[in-house]
């Protein structure tokens, strides 16, 4: 019987075109994903990770088996439902089929079909990779060596991850469809599943939640990423993802759950046609006629049909529809699920190292944005529902014969939805304020809520609703309408990827941008308004077409609709349509004028091509000897309101070579379209020898060559003018409040290597040779220039900055004079004159904003006072004290440990959150409002104090980077970034508890291991880091912390002190004749390291070393009254990885490793009672230690000082008893 039922199901599906359609969709999507550049699944392949690597195949398979969950729902939701909908239930249930055979026959039959449909995934992958090379277009891996074909690589992930995922989804959809007998419940459930996935994703922001998040995701996607997060590119290219560990648990839990659900379905399914619901249907009330109908006369009512009554009808209808949606159970379901998603998100939002931000309204708005997905679902789904409302209940003929004008119906549907949106937005605001209040934050910025949600979000909803109306009316089939909306999204995405990225073609483009407390919505508002007007006109045109072509009556053929439509072209409608068409074309032209006439528009491809041409044309000048800047003296006039500035003044350029120079190569800032108004040398006009306007590159010929050792004054004026608005990402550096620019806006000398394409895949695509990211440490050119570029070594610096009177402008140096005045146009100006009294590197910032100032003082050990200042935005007072404390503690520690602070002043200036970093300039630290200023340290015991840390790091740079700028070669960041990181760690170590330090280092280790797993080119050892943040920041932290732990903080500081003494202000003009490299510093470390530990320098700095420490057994026996002997058995292994992550075990040699024993403290927390380094020489080790308290947990390297991918197995609970032998 069961077999019969299964066969029936298979036969049924075989005849359905939809089955082949689903297969086709999956096949094409997967096929294009592996053979074209425009469709991307997952996006992890590229660089070192090969496109057909087992990891990427498994990743893509996992994604494809859940991202198209609607296919599963379409097949699995309906097998039983179908019988009810087609009213064949009575026929079916009176046959002698058993409930078991019926249900499971339907289930397994459909499940089999689903699996067969999803086989499209691996088949398409195989086909794609086999024939990709011979297709007329180029796959992304065109000129790359891919792995040889291996059938198992394709099929294994499908069997282990794909089928389980399909099974789980199948069971849930089947149960939902069978038990509820309502299609909509199936969809709502699909949304719930996706939300669970989303929630799991959100939770991952906290490291402690990794396991839970991995288990919570029903699709196994998170389990997959967590399980493979530390896989190196080599492992990804060579290893199948096995079904074990977290991944296996996730699958077991969910498959188990699915089986339970199936069992539940079996028990819960009633084999009756009429169902006894939970709520008894109310019995039909018998007519109790208290009057004789015949005696009733129908009163005459006035029928009013005019504009007023049409409005009344409109309102009546709109409210009717709105009420209908609110009462719809799925609607409530979607909203509730969406709100739950928000509330879960509220616990995690904007975290850094596990520390949250204050829920300022800008942050909460970011959180509320997550509801957009649900809004989109509501908009698309209920647009369809409302368009089909009357027809779906077969009430349409009655409605259509009413004397209601054609436009009223559609407008009423629209307004009905609009009312729902307005209400939901209000709910969101209440939720947002609730989140703020729950966090004890009561500065509700209601105007900001309204300003954002009722413009940007509301417009987004309006645009998609009217689009969906149009699509539904044109398609004239609800499900085809939904499918077309889906296609619309895919097409939009694809044409974007194909290079059509102009906002005029990207539906509903023109975002309001990010809100900054400093700059508010700033200049974004202009572009937003025009783009929205453009799109609003567009959707209004669609709406007019919809009104004309909407089906009214019983006929839906397009021919008939066109004929009737002509009758509907009333004068107001025609006028409305014409106005919207005029508005659409008008705004379209205006947008185009702004984006393409006032500004230059380039597509992604064109930008790449520009970089290619630049490189091909000008690379020959790269190493041409050029003079160096030795002084910069500029007057910068900022006009924040207009977002313009000019800079006028001079550089002194010096020929530091031993040969005369005739030509000077000047590079303008092309990226920001800065124009050179004039530029000449030494008073006389220099001749332009050659110029590439597109590249902003000019070769000037001096009147007479610049003799060796001679200098020339370069006078110039450059201007930056904001014209209208741009197509893509506007400039967020020159803004109305919170300008932050640096000297890259000003002319620079010679070829700009950073303009080249860096990514190897991109370079291959454009037929350029792969390139090294940095110069070798032995390259004399690299050694003679510092990390701030080859324009200068050190410069004399002064600058006058003018700005609007309400703003304070700051540049490096000391304020000489401040005055107000008028500029040439007569407007009020405020001027600041800054001058630096010692040479500084050629790297300076200019900031200007309406600042509040907090001042303090720090007096150094030598009695020298340093003025401390924080320039901040009013309202961001939260962490000022912390930052000041950090400034003082850092200055204390660094001046004592490394050498004196070189300046008399130290300033922090807040800048808008468009970027999230802080950056150290000479005595000046611009600091993003997004980090630090609004971080909330709610529990100093548990939360890492981010502002404290970031401040300390940036102050560290005043030594590492500013006192010792390093050579521009591989490994450079180990000198500036890693040492600033070390400096900050030491300040933190003397302030924070060991537990917090351990927490910080845990994040650093995680970031390093994740970073190396995603390395696109090659992982370098620390000593050769090539701008790889995960190495020089994150690995650097771990290693430096371990180093000071192994050889002692004093020794590390002594090494740094000596290094600083020898290398302060290095360069070609210094006693060392060059800039230092990481190898130089390593020498100082080695000098401080005892022989027994010399190996750590090699292992940690010069190699990529990974440890596997694991406690296999931990037991204790009592020794006397209060003594316990703990016996610990552990294994210790060491691996060395190459740049791709290929590992080989290496002999341990003689190593030192921590052994620790914890006891349960009185507060129930683990407390270390023993921590000592033990010598280890082989893999298996047994250690006995005596402790004075009852041991609870013990292990090897218990606080994870060494890089280890499985830190959790380092410790184990200690059990009483003798150790096994």
């Amino acid at each position, binding site marked *: 019987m069961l077999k019969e039922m299964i066969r029936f199901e298979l036969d049924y599906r075989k005849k359905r075109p939809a089955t082949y359609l689903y297969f086709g969709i999956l096949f094409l999507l997967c096929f294009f994903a592996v053979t074209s550049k425009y469709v991307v699944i997952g996006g992890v392949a590229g660089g070192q990770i090969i496109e057909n690597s087992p990891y990427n195949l498994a990743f893509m398979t996992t994604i494809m088996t859940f991202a198209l969950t609607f296919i599963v729902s379409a097949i699995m939701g309906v097998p039983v439902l179908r019988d009810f909908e087609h009213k064949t239930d009575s026929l079916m249930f009176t046959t002698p089929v058993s409930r078991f055979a019926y249900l499971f026959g339907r289930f397994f039959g459909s499940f089999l079909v689903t699996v067969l449909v999803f086989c499209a995934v691996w088949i398409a992958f195989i086909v794609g990779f086999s024939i990709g090379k011979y297709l007329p277009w180029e796959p992304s891996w065109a000129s790359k060596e891919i792995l040889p074909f291996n059938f198992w690589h394709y099929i294994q992930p499908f069997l282990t991850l794909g089928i389980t995922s399909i099974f789980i989804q199948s069971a849930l959809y089947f149960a939902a469809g069978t038990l509820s007998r309502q299609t909509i419940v199936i969809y709502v459930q699909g949304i719930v599943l996706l939300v669970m996935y989303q929630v799991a994703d959100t939770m991952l922001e906290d490291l402690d939640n990794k396991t839970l998040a991995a288990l919570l995701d029903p699709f196994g996607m998170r389990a997959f990423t967590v399980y493979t997060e530390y896989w190196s590119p080599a492992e990804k290219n060579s290893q199948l993802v096995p079904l074990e560990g977290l991944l296996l648990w996730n699958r077991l839990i969910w498959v188990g759950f699915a089986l339970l659900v199936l069992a539940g379905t079996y028990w819960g399914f009633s084999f009756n046609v009429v169902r006894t619901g939970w709520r008894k249907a*109310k019995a*039909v009330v018998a007519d109790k006629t208290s009057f004789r*109908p015949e005696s009733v006369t129908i009163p005459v009512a006035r029928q009013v049909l005019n504009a007023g009554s049409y409005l009344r009808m409109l309102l009546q209808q709109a409210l009717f529809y709105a009420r209908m949606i609110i009462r719809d159970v799925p609607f409530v379901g979607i909203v509730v699920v969406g709100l739950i998603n928000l509330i879960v998100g509220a616990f995690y939002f904007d975290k850094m190292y596990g520390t949250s931000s204050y829920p300022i309204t800008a942050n909460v708005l970011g959180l509320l944005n997550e509801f957009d997905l649900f809004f989109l679902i509501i908009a698309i789904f209920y647009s369809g529902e409302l368009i089909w409302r009357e027809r779906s209940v077969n*009430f349409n003929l009655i409605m259509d014969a009413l004397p209601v004008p054609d436009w009223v119906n559609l407008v009423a549907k629209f307004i009905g939805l609009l009312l729902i949106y307005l209400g939901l937005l209000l709910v969101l605001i209440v939720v947002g304020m609730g989140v703020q209040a729950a966090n004890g934050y009561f500065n509700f910025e209601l105007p900001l809520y309204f300003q954002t949600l009722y413009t940007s979000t509301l417009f987004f909803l309006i645009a998609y609703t009217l689009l969906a109306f149009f699509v539904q009316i044109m398609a004239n089939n609800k499900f085809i309408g939904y499918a077309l909306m889906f296609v619309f999204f895919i097409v939009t995405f694809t044409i974007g990827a194909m290079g059509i990225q102009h906002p005029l073609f990207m539906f509903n483009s023109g975002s309001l941008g990010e809100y900054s407390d400093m700059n508010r919505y700033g200049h974004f508002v202009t572009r937003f308004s025009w783009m929205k007007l453009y799109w609003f006109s567009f959707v209004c045109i669609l709406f007019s077409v919809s009104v004309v072509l909407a089906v009214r009556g019983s006929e839906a053929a397009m021919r008939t609709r066109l004929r009737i439509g002509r009758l509907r072209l009333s004068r107001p409608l025609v006028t409305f349509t014409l106005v919207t068409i005029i508005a659409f074309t008008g705004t379209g032209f205006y947008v185009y004028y702004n984006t393409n006439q006032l500004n230059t528009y380039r597509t992604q491809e064109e930008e790449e091509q520009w970089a290619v041409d630049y490189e091909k044309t000008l690379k020959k000048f790269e190493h041409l000897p050029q003079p160096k800047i030795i002084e910069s003296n500029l007057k910068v006039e900022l006009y924040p309101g207009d977002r313009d500035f000019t800079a006028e003044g001079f550089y002194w350029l010096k020929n530091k070579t031993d040969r005369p120079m005739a030509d000077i190569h000047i590079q303008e800032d092309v990226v920001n379209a800065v124009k050179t108004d004039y530029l000449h040398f030494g008073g006389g006009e220099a001749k332009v020898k050659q110029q590439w306007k597109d590249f902003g590159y000019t070769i000037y010929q001096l009147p007479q060559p610049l003799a060796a050792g001679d200098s020339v004054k370069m006078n110039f004026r450059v201007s930056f003018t904001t014209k209208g608005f741009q197509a893509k990402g506007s400039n967020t550096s020159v803004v109305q409040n919170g300008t932050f620019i640096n000297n890259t806006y000003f002319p620079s000398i010679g070829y700009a290597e950073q303009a080249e394409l860096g990514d190897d895949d991109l370079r291959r695509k454009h037929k350029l040779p792969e390139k090294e990211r940095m110069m070798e440490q032995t390259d004399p050119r690299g050694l003679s220039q510092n990390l701030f570029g080859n324009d200068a070594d050190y410069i004399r610096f002064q600058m006058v900055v003018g700005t609007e009177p309400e703003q304070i402008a700051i540049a490096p140096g000391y304020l000489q004079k401040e005055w107000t005045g008028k500029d040439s146009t007569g407007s009020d100006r405020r001027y600041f004159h800054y001058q630096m009294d010692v040479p500084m590197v050629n790297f300076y910032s200019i900031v200007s904003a309406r600042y509040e100032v907090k001042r303090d003082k720090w007096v150094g050990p030598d009695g020298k006072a340093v003025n401390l200042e924080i320039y901040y935005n009013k309202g961001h007072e939260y962490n000022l004290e912390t930052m000041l404390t950090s400034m003082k503690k850092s200055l204390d520690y660094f001046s004592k440990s490394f050498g004196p602070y070189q300046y008399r002043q130290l300033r922090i200036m807040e800048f808008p959150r468009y970027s999230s970093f802080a950056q150290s300039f000479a005595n000046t630290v611009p600091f993003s409002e997004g980090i630090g200023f609004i971080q909330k340290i709610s529990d100093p015991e548990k939360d890492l104090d981010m502002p404290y840390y970031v401040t300390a790091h940036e102050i560290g740079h005043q030594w590492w980077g500013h006192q010792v700028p390093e050579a521009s070669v591989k490994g450079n960041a180990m000198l500036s970034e890693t040492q600033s990181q070390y400096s900050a760690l030491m300040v933190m170590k003397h302030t924070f508890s060991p537990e917090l330090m351990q927490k910080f280092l845990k994040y650093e280790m995680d970031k390093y291991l994740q970073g190396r797993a995603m390395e696109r080119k090659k992982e370098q050892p620390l000593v050769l880091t090539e701008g790889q943040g995960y190495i020089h920041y994150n690995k650097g932290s771990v290693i430096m912390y371990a180093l000071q732990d192994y050889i002692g903080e004093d020794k590390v500081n002594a090494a740094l002190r000596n290094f600083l003494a020898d290398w302060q202000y290095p360069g070609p003009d210094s006693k060392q004749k060059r800039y230092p490299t990481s190898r130089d510093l390593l020498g100082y470390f080695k000098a401080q390291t005892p022989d027994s530990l010399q190996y750590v320098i090699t292992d940690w700095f010069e190699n990529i070393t990974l440890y596997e420490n694991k406690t296999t057994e931990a037991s204790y026996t009592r020794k006397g009254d209060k003594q316990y002997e703990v016996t610990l058995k552990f294994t210790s292994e060491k691996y060395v990885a190459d740049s791709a992550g290929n590992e080989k075990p290496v002999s341990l040699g003689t190593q030192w490793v921590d052994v620790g024993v914890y006891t349960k403290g009185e507060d129930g927390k683990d407390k270390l009672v023993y921590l000592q380094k033990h010598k280890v020489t082989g893999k298996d080790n047994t250690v006995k230690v005596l402790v004075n308290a009852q041991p609870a947990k013990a292990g090897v390297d218990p606080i994870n000082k060494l890089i280890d991918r499985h830190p959790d197995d380092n410790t184990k609970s200690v059990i009483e008893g003798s150790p096994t032998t």
Partner: protein
Amino acid sequence: MQLIIQHLNKTYSNGVQALKDVSLTINQGMFGLLGPNGAGKSSLMRTIATLQEPDSGSIQLGDTNVLTQKDEVRRVLGYLPQEFGVYPKVDAETLLNHLAVLKGITNSGERKEVVKALLQKTNLYDARKKNLGGYSGGMKQRFGIAQALLANPKLIIVDEPTAGLDPAERNRFLNLLSEIGENTIVILSTHIVEDVKELCSDMAIINKGQVLYKGSPLQALSDIEGKIWEKRVPKAELEAYRQQYTIISEKLVGGTPVIHVMADTDPGDGFVAIPGDLEDVYFSHIFGRQAVAV
């Protein structure tokens, strides 16, 4: 006011010709449209109710061109489609009130009165607060009638209104219609001959898209007077009679077939002349056409 239909033709995209050169003139009063299922009655009525487009032909309601001035027609129209659903989660009073607004009864006091009266008239008043989802077929049909009568329509089109009503309800409904029908055009389609006989002053018989007969029921009856012959025949001989005569109707009376044939003269063979009723008119046009032609 007159409703004049001229040369109406309609062929659906699946090739079915629903209306073939239909021309009718309908005066105030009750007009019956009689025909079997699938005859084109509903197509014709939907076309008059502005819900469907003919391929050719014209419809004129007084001075209004029904095909182009749809809004004018809808002002005076009351329409009850053959099959319709309702919003299950809305109660009758709310929905009727809603529809009243959409019919242009904007004065809320008047609207309340009208809604109340119609609910009483259709005997739904006691169930007015009940969700329509819980209504029986008859109750739903009565609701449909109530809405068609909103705003004193001048043209009422009711498509198979008595289907699904029990005899008592049917009577009440027909009475209601006849009350209204005096200075209104009421077009009633049905395949139940009795409905027409009792109510209509004028009628048309339509089959396969064509008008087979138009005139008054009385005229129709007098046309067949003396032409209808009846005979009880044994079951076994029925087939033979079918061969020999053009039977316009056959039914079982007490288990024995009784057949009617139409003939100008006594066909003999034991046939007895009977006074034909409207049913015979109907069947004679539907099935007897061939015979008449011969």
